[in-house]
């Protein structure tokens, strides 16, 4: 059972990690893709895991409340490179540090047929979490669960300018504010031999205010991105072959954000509710290295006002498991093949 629990966590670590999302903004959605990236699992004591994810989010759907407008003049592309470290400090506790590097491109089709392009790139904010494995001393259960709490730390710049002109908050690599982050994870293996697993995860982010955003001209106009809630539920089907393990994945992600605020006032056309369908596949070539590919398609959107929203996303991940001697790692990708290093 310990195997299943840890496997599921590992799977989840791999599965949900980069379901990052974007902040809504009055005119576009882009921004700092961290809140949805806390899907990492827990590591066993003294184990280190490194996950590197490349994520692309294409936003070109102009949505009015729930209706897609026939307008594709604007486009935002967010490329994110997320590097996450998980280290098990003891059997129940894991610390997680996630670093981000963000590349955003804004394109607008002008009336003369040319495209106005702006490229912004830089280190984004980081996330630090402490996670607690709720069932660490109940290894034989088919259930697993963990909770975590921590903070998003504003290490990314939020004062980038273009020729001296301050860029909008959602184009900045960092948000300039400390956020509180809460994370919950639960999974269940249907039976010890059944290849199906069910998993769910929730995150809640309480955002802080960047009081320095307009500091040059109006220090009282602090910028605050909307609070964010996400819930992911999904299933995986494991296929074992002689060459490798693979998982077929299917999950849905619900996300809601409150409106952004500036100077304490709500910014219209920010915030809303989204539902995404996420198909994907995991491949494990050996005990240390795994790969994953997922896509993300919006299936329901109910937004405040008019916003540019995600058309589709995809990401590619590489998971490196630095497995210490004397410890056993159980992975859903290595079911039935206990790897002792």
């Amino acid at each position, binding site marked *: 059972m310990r195997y299943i629990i840890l496997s599921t966590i590992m799977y989840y670590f791999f599965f949900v990690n980069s379901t990052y999302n974007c902040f809504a903004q*009055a*005119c*576009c959605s882009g921004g700092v893709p961290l809140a949805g990236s806390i899907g990492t699992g827990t590591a066993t004591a*003294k184990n*280190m895991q*490194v996950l590197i994810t490349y994520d692309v989010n294409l936003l070109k759907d*102009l949505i*009015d*409340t729930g*209706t897609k*407008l*026939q*307008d594709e*003049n*604007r486009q935002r592309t967010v490329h994110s490179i997320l*590097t996450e*470290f998980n280290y098990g400090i003891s059997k129940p506790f894991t610390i997680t540090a996630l*670093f981000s*590097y963000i590349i955003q491109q*804004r*394109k*607008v089709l*002008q*009336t*003369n047929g040319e495209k*106005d*392009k*702006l*490229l*912004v*790139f*830089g*280190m984004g904010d980081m996330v630090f979490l402490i996670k607690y494995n709720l069932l660490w001393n109940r290894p034989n259960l088919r259930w697993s669960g963990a909770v975590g709490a921590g903070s998003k730390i504003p290490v*990314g*710049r939020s004062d*980038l*300018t*273009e*020729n*001296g*002109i*301050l*860029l*909008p908050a*959602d*184009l900045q690599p960092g948000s300039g504010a400390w956020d509180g982050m809460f994370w919950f994870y639960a999974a269940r293996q249907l039976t010890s031999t059944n290849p199906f697993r069910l998993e769910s995860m929730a995150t809640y982010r309480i955002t802080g205010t960047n009081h320095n955003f307009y500091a*040059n*001209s109006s220090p009282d*106009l602090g910028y605050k991105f909307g609070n964010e809630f996400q819930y992911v539920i999904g299933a995986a089907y494991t296929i074992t072959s002689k060459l490798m393990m693979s998982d077929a994945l299917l999950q849905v992600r619900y996300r809601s954000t409150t409106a952004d605020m*500036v*100077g*304490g*006032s*709500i910014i*219209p*056309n920010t915030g809303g509710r989204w539902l995404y369908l996420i198909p994907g596949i995991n491949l494990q070539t050996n005990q240390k290295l795994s790969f994953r590919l997922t896509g993300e398609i919006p299936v329901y959107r109910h937004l405040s*006002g*008019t916003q540019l929203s995600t058309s589709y996303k995809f990401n590619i991940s590489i998971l490196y498991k*630095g497995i*210490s001697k004397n410890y056993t790692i159980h992975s859903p990708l290595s079911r039935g093949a206990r790897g002792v290093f």
Partner: protein
Amino acid sequence: MKDYMLFSLKLVNLLLMFSICFTSCKKDKDKLKGEWLIPKSEVLDGGPGKDGIPALTNPAFIAASDATYLQDNDLVVGFISGNDVRAYPHAILDWHEIINDDVNGVSIAVTYCPLTGTGIGWDRNVNGTVTTFGVSGLLYNTNLIPYDRATDSNWSQMKLLCVNGTLIRTKVQVIPVVETTWKTWKAMYAQTKVVSKQTGYSRNYDRYPYGDYKTNNDNLFFPLNPKDKRLPSKERVHGVIINDIAKVYQYYHFTDSMQLINDSFQNTDLVIAGSQPDNFIVSFVRRLSNDTLLTFTPIQNKLPVIMQDNEGTEWDIFGNAISGPRAGEQLSATVSFMGYWLAWGAFYPNAEIY
């Protein structure tokens, strides 16, 4: 285990160094460089990008009777050239901010900033070249910065001045327009045409895109400098600009009937005419080119005629003499427009309040 820790620390170090070295932004063309006549540090990127809010050029018009998307209380910017009467509704301008139009030989750009509530007619003939204006996506003091497509220069809407680019220091030639309600406008000019909702862009013109911004005095999306708190920030005022100094007249000072204010500002004799029920304020210079100083009295319930002078001439809302000894003449228009106080206070510090 040490190996893994060391590996991780090295990776983090590498990431941080990479990140610090490579944080920047680039635009295809450095069009925003060069001299600015406004503090560049106070110019902001509003988010949508250049042309992200698409200006309209020669949009389709419909008859007033077909404009079912407009309510009586909706505000419009009205313009007349000869027999061609046109209305540019805020409902359209909220989404496009600029409408480039040709009206009976006049090349006009109706520029409108939803965040300052300022609708101004601009002559598109700049230094002999007819251009069109687009929305740069930049803001100064929460006010629209249009750009002209002939030279790509940036202009300040409320300063009425080119502030960056090859046309820098060129002043806007203002074309008189009247801001009022749809009800008043179509009552005055039944033959008016109005911009169709079929603009070529897919937008929800039935919805105001900025929430309670129009009425919430605490709601401000972008900084102002200075912030003048003598009046509520969203109070609508009619501002008159003479010698780069402004004087404002509060909408709510005008009463239930047609009312005039004979005033003097910057050694210029003015008449300010307004009506709350009909929802407009206009202003003119009272002294004629031959130095005759006219004195006006209001005319009730005869729109578009609004006043009569001491010689017996009746004048309409655009300052045209409709009947009487001066029929056919026109009063000099002031450089003036309606707007929220917040912007007048920021653009014209220490503006005089009537």
